[in-house]
């Protein structure tokens, strides 16, 4: 992949990541009420989160080969921050999927309060973790990115 293509993918990854954070906050707020339905919001938030993760996975190989060492050489702290971001992103995307499945499986069943509460918990945690990941990613990209 050319450096220009990598830089473009990295920019898209970063912008979609912030959109995903914003999209995850919506169901985290709306699903406070167990009877509330938010199928579109949950589906869109989970899709955006997954797309962000997918783009990150695509550029992870070139990152490992081209950027990881220079980042560590310049600052071990920032290198470790990137590792933290990568691990937390896995948890965020998994929680978004769990939240989506919980919300959709609730269906029209009025007794499914446990699933509704769990869906809310999943989206709150996913939003908080994804926000942290986006902040860390922006910090590292501001320090060094594909050129």
């Amino acid at each position: 992949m050319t450096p220009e293509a990598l830089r473009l993918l990295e920019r898209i990854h970063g912008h979609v990541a912030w959109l995903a954070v914003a999209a995850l906050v919506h169901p985290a707020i709306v699903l406070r009420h167990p009877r509330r339905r938010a199928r579109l919001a949950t589906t869109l938030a989970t899709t955006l989160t997954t797309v962000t993760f997918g783009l990150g996975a695509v550029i992870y190989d070139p990152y490992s080969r081209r950027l990881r060492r220079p980042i560590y050489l310049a600052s071990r702290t920032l290198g470790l921050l990137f590792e933290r971001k990568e691990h937390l992103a896995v948890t965020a995307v998994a929680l978004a999927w769990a939240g989506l499945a919980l919300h959709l499986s609730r269906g029209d069943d009025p007794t499914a309060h446990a699933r509704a509460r769990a869906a809310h918990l999943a989206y709150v945690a996913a939003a908080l973790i994804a926000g942290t990941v986006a902040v860390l990613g922006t910090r590292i990209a501001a320090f060094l990115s594909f050129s």
Partner: protein
Amino acid sequence: MRGLLRALVVAACAFAIAYSLLRVAQALFFPAPDPRTVVVVGRIAFYWRCAIAGFAAIVAGIGGSALAARSTRSFDELLSLLLTTTIAIGVLQGVFVP
């Protein structure tokens, strides 16, 4: 359809938990060399962890689906515990075992 969705809940949580546990095991038993000393990158551990966690997620999803089919109430009661465990393990590993 609901059985599939319940399986997906368990699979998603299992994916995150397995990924975190694999990272901890890797840090304990197979520590990677200092990235500052690595000039040529061979295998990329992130992809391997995701692949193995994906396999664990499929297996756990099948098990979760079977549990949900047997007792939906028990399954619902375990959901909060499952999610809390996933969040705790994911965050603790992410922060303390980078």
